[in-house]
Structures are given as structure tokens and as C-alpha cells.
């Protein structure tokens, strides 16, 4: 991947949250988050459920609107309020830079694996058919699924589905990927194949924001670990620090629960 270079005008800073606040029924989910993420880094976001991890990712690419603050991705800024008008245009631009992978895959069931990959490049980027297909075949090979390119999603195992979903996100040449618990729906023996693909991507220098419960993966592959609880950042630092010497009792408690 060559797409991981920082956008012009914002050297070193691919992505930022500026006082982001999001609530639901008067109850805060994200409580004024401010955060900068360097291009090419791998960030693991951990924390108890309901802590705002998924909401954070969804605010970043405009799938969920927020009440205050802002999001900046490269040169594009997404403000508070509904995803309409200038916000819609900004969200559209940001989604080109940040792909997303979901816990429940969300492959398009009426399309084969390769059709899932060519649909967006063809119709959003206007790529010629032959080019889009060649690119899709390269990406499927990269995730080890070229032999399954004509299978429909329901004919694939969970791990295979998630690898197709990763390839689909990559087909738009994003600079970063938002990964929302992408191994949570998989059996333990299938998690490995998906995480292996992610480690491979990391080596290519793509920015990875991963909401995950895989502490082993975070320790091995992340440059930075964020602990999110009650809509606020509890800890922020390299895995050696956050995972080995957590500062707060809450983090220690969470980690001990997770590690059994």
C-alpha cells in the first residue's frame, strides 16, 4: 500500500478529535474527547462495553452525528449537527480516506465476493471494469481468498467473510481503516487468520484504529493503546505502559477481567 502518506498541509497528523461530545437521552457517550492520531500508526482502543468505543469510530466517518466539537481527517473537517449540507460533503470525503470494517461483516449478500469488491471502485471512483476486477483479484489474493472470488457471502466461513470485508474496504485505497470489533463474532480458531491480515496491513503503513478485546494483538501490534470508559480517555500510551503498568484502578480491574 502506498496510500499511507500523510495528507499535504497536515504533516504527521492524519486524524484528530476536537472536544467531541455525543450524548444519548441526556446521558453522555463521548464526553468532550480531544485526541490526535499520527498517520501510519496502529491504535488499539479498549475498554468496558458501553464506554463509547464504537460511537467514537462512527463519529469519525460521519455515520453518527454528534452535538459539539469536531472531527478532522486530513484537510476535511466534520462539525457538530446532522450529516447534511457541508457536513455531508465532508463525511463523503472522509469516508474516501477511512474505510470501515464491521463486527458483523455487512457484506452485500446479493453480490459475490469479487462483486462486493468492485462495486464501489466502479460506481464511486468511476474506475474502468477491467482495472477494478484486476485490483479486486489482487486484494483477494492478498487476504488469501482468490479461490473463493465467485462465492456468495453465505457460502463463506466467518473468517473468510471478514477477510473479504477487509479487502472490500481496501478496494477504495483508504489511508486508514476503522475496525469495529472485527474479530468478536468469530470462533477463536478463525480470529487468527483475520488478525494476521491486519498485522500485514500495519507493516504497509496504513493507519489502523481498532476497537478490540484482543489484548494479545494490542500488545504485539499496536503503537498506542487507548482505554475508553464512560466517554472519556482513561489511559493513553504505548502498550508496554498501558497494558503492563496501568495508572488507574479501573483499567487494572478491566484488564484482569479480560485476561481472566
Amino acid at each position: 500500500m502506498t496510500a499511507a502518506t500523510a495528507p499535504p498541509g497536515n504533516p504527521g497528523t492524519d486524524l484528530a478529535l476536537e472536544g467531541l461530545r455525543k450524548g444519548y437521552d441526556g446521558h453522555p457517550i463521548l464526553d468532550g474527547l480531544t485526541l490526535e492520531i499520527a498517520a501510519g500508526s496502529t491504535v488499539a482502543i479498549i475498554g468496558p462495553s458501553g464506554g463509547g468505543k464504537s460511537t467514537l469510530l462512527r463519529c469519525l466517518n460521519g455515520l453518527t452525528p454528534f452535538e459539539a466539537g469536531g472531527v478532522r481527517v486530513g484537510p476535511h473537517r466534520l462539525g457538530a449537527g446532522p450529516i447534511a449540507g457541508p457536513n455531508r460533503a465532508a463525511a463523503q470525503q472522509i469516508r474516501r480516506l477511512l474505510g470501515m470494517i464491521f463486527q458483523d461483516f455487512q457484506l452485500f449478500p446479493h453480490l459475490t465476493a469479487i462483486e462486493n469488491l468492485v462495486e464501489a471502485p466502479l460506481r464511486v471512483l468511476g474506475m474502468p471494469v477491467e482495472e477494478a476486477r484486476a485490483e479486486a483479484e489482487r486484494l483477494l489474493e492478498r487476504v488469501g481468498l482468490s479461490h473463493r472470488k465467485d462465492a456468495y457471502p453465505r457460502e463463506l466461513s466467518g473468517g473468510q467473510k471478514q477477510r473479504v470485508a477487509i479487502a472490500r474496504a481496501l478496494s477504495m485505497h483508504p489511508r486508514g481503516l476503522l475496525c469495529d470489533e472485527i474479530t468478536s463474532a468469530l470462533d477463536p480458531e478463525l480470529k487468527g487468520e483475520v488478525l494476521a491480515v491486519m498485522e500485514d496491513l500495519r507493516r504497509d503503513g496504513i493507519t489502523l484504529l481498532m476497537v478490540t478485546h484482543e489484548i494479545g494483538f494490542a500488545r504485539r501490534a499496536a503503537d498506542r493503546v487507548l482505554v475508553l470508559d464512560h466517554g472519556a480517555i482513561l489511559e493513553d500510551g504505548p502498550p508496554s505502559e498501558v497494558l503492563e503498568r496501568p495508572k488507574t484502578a479501573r483499567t487494572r480491574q478491566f484488564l484482569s477481567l479480560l485476561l481472566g
Partner: protein
Amino acid sequence: MRGAPLLVLLAALALPVATSPATADTTRPLLWATDAEGGAPYTFKDPKDPNRNIGFEVEIIAEIEKEIGQPIVPQQYAFSSLILGLQRGDFDFAMNGLEVTPDRAEKVLFSIPYYVFREQLVVRRGESRFRDLEGCAKIHCVVGTLEDTAADRLLHARGMTATMYDGVVEPYRDLVLGRVDAVLLDLPIAIYYAKPNPDLEFAGEAMARGTYAIMFQKGNEALKHRIDAALERLIQDGRLRAILEHWNLWDDQQAALAQVGGGDIIAASRQAWTFERYFPLLLRGATLTVFLAVVSFGLAVLLGLPIACMRLYGAAPLRWAAIAYVEFFRGIPVLLLLYVLYYGMADLSTASGLGSAFRLDPIQAAILGLGLNYAAYEAEIYRAGISAVPYGQWEAAASLGMTGWLAFRRIILPQAVRTILPPMTGDFVALFKDTSIVSTIAVVELSKQYQILSKSSMKYLEIGLLTAVLYLVMSVPLGFLSRRLEKIWGRGIL
């Protein structure tokens, strides 16, 4: 293929509405409205050539045609809607045993009379309880008759219980079957439909004189004067008498007429209506049925999608409009809608000074009525199908940079089609059968053709079974086609 139904629809709606019969052009053919359904001896289908009509009125018209030197073309029109049709300007004049009455004379123009009719009471052979209308009234018997006729008013004036029919064949059938005690109808009808029937007999003398005349639109004095002059000459030179004698209707004395009798034209026509003669007519009706079903369903399918989208994604006013549309058109009977579109719109068009701008012809009104009605059902089917696609699919499409419209078209709709298709096929079959309702606005489709042919031939069962077979031949393959499409479009989903 995808654009074809739309084109057909546009072509149908663009059919010229223009030829307004009210204009005073003397070279174009005059349109003569008549109901050939069970219409002996006035106007009825010639069993030897089902494409033409015969009857004493047909012969009078032929002579008038010669006199005025302008061609006259018959138009099939439901008897009970003749006055409405005349007011709409669907034809130039109506001649179909129409009685001159004071209240009608306020709405339309009448020619000079061409026949003096009387009412004849008919009972089952051997009826011993009564021999005339007075006796009948005393025992509170039930009398069958044709709605909105002199006989109907006579019964009403005497406070007798009447059963209304909209054809002349059914009352006598019901009399034989014992569903009514007597039938009171115009003498010519009694002579042709009751006299030859061995199970029935005339009771008492014919009574209550009245006259038949030709009906014109109010204000069309020009045509009335031309046709009056022609009738005058037919009466003067004895041609009218010759025609009436030919049909055994000349009755300077009622008793003499009754003795002469009409001959058993019904039995003769029953033998004459062979398969080769009636089947082509049924096929023609079937073709129109298919056309109506396909075009109006095309309209419903096209209209249903935007309505569903307005309801699902529109801002509040659009959403309310969509809900109002669905509730309104689902909640009113198609029959009412057809009448309003066909007769009501024409009135409105005339009243608001737009002339014939909104005067739909019967086919246009039928397509619009069925299309608008079914669009409400299709919109609900679309809505259910689209809502059934998980929301995550929208998010996945958005995260790939797709706009809402692109995601809808390429991702959501193709998945919804799988859910939409089976109920939609069911609706098409239902609409296919519902087309029979448009016969009420003068469209002769398959069911109407069956009614006309069965009454002319008395072969209710034989032609009925054949008509059912025609419907099945058309509707059953639809089920197979739907299941195939479900398989093809459902790949990967189920």
C-alpha cells in the same frame, strides 16, 4: 424491455380524447350508443356474424343513415349508463328502447317517437294465485323488472315490491326458477324472451302506454332536427311500419300482436352460437384484459416506488402525503374510483370550461383507476421489502463512499426485490382478475364479453368454463414465472 410498459402506458394515455361527438361535423360517422347485451329485439348480436348487430332499431338506423346521408356507427354501452354517457359526450345519440319521461326530458333532448310500447306482465305457466297486476299486488308478490324503466316506475307508483335487474334475460330466468312471482317488462321484450318459453305465459293485457325515442345531448337541436325529419319520412312512407312488421312488433291491436308472437329467436340463436363464432370474441376480450392488466400494473409499480420512498425517507409533509395516498386509495372501492374518473372528471372538465381536456376515454380511465388503486398496495409492499434490509447494509455502503441514492439502487433495492416479488406477483394476479370491474365503464373485456355472449346464446355454463380456462391460461404461468425470477434474483440471499 424495461421501458416497454411505460411506453405502452404513455401511448394509451395519449390516445386522442379529442373527437368530441358534440361538434357539428356532418361528414364524420355519428356514434350511436346501444347495449347489445341481451338486447333482442332492439339491438343484439347476429349469431351468424358476431361482429354485427341486428334488431329492429338496427334497421331503423340503416334507413335514417340513408336519409341523412351520414354514416352511423354503433357503440356498445351499458344500458344503465346511457344517460350519463350522453351527458359526458361519449357518443352523439342513444337509441335503445329508451322511454320518454318528463324527468329525462329535463336532462336530454328526445326525437319524435318511433315506437309505442306497453308493459306486459308475465307469470309462470299455470299460475293460479293471480291473473293481473292488481291480483299480484293483493297477495304482495315480488315482481322482477329492469331498473329505471317505465315498468319500474309503474310498480313503484303502486307500492309493489320489485326486484331490479340490469338486463332483460335474468328476470325471466329467475321467474322460471321461482325467485320472483312475476315479471313486468316492455311488450317487445316479453314477446322475444318470455313468449317462446314453455314455462311462462302472459298474464292479462298489456298496459301503460309509453313511447320510445332517440336521445340527444341537451343543446344538440341541429342533430335532433335532422333525425326527426328522417323519422318523419320513415313514418310517412311506411318504411317504419315495414320494419316493425318484419319484427312482429306492429300492433294496432295488442291481441293480434300477442297471437303472432316473435318466434323462438332465443332457441334459434342458441343453436347458431357455435364455438367458432363466439371463441374469437372471447379471445378479443382476453387480449384487452391482458393489455389493461399489464399497463395498469406497470403504472402501479412505477408509482408505488416513489410513494414508498417518500414514506420511508421523505420529510414530514412528503411522508404525510404518502400515507394519505396509501390510506385513501386502499380505502375506497375501485368501482367508485372508476366512476369518478370516468363520469366525474368529465363533468368537472365541462363545468370548469376546460372542454374535453380531462374527458378520459374508457380505456384511459380504466388504466388510471386500476393503476392508482394498485399503486397504494405496491407502495406498501415496497416499503415492507425495503425496511426488511438490515440498516447495517446502508452503513456498509456509506462507509465505501456511496451516496444514499447509489446505495439504495445498487445495494438495498436488489435485496428488497427478493422479498417484494412474491406478494407483487400475487397482486398482479389479483389485478388481472379485477380488470373485470372496468366493464362498468363501457370497456368490453373478457368478463363483459362473457356476459354478452352467454346472454345471447344462453350457454352460461359452456362459455363460462371456457372463459375460466382463458383466465387460468393467463394467470397460472405468472406463478411459475414469479418463482423463477425469485430464484434468479434471490441468489446469495436465501
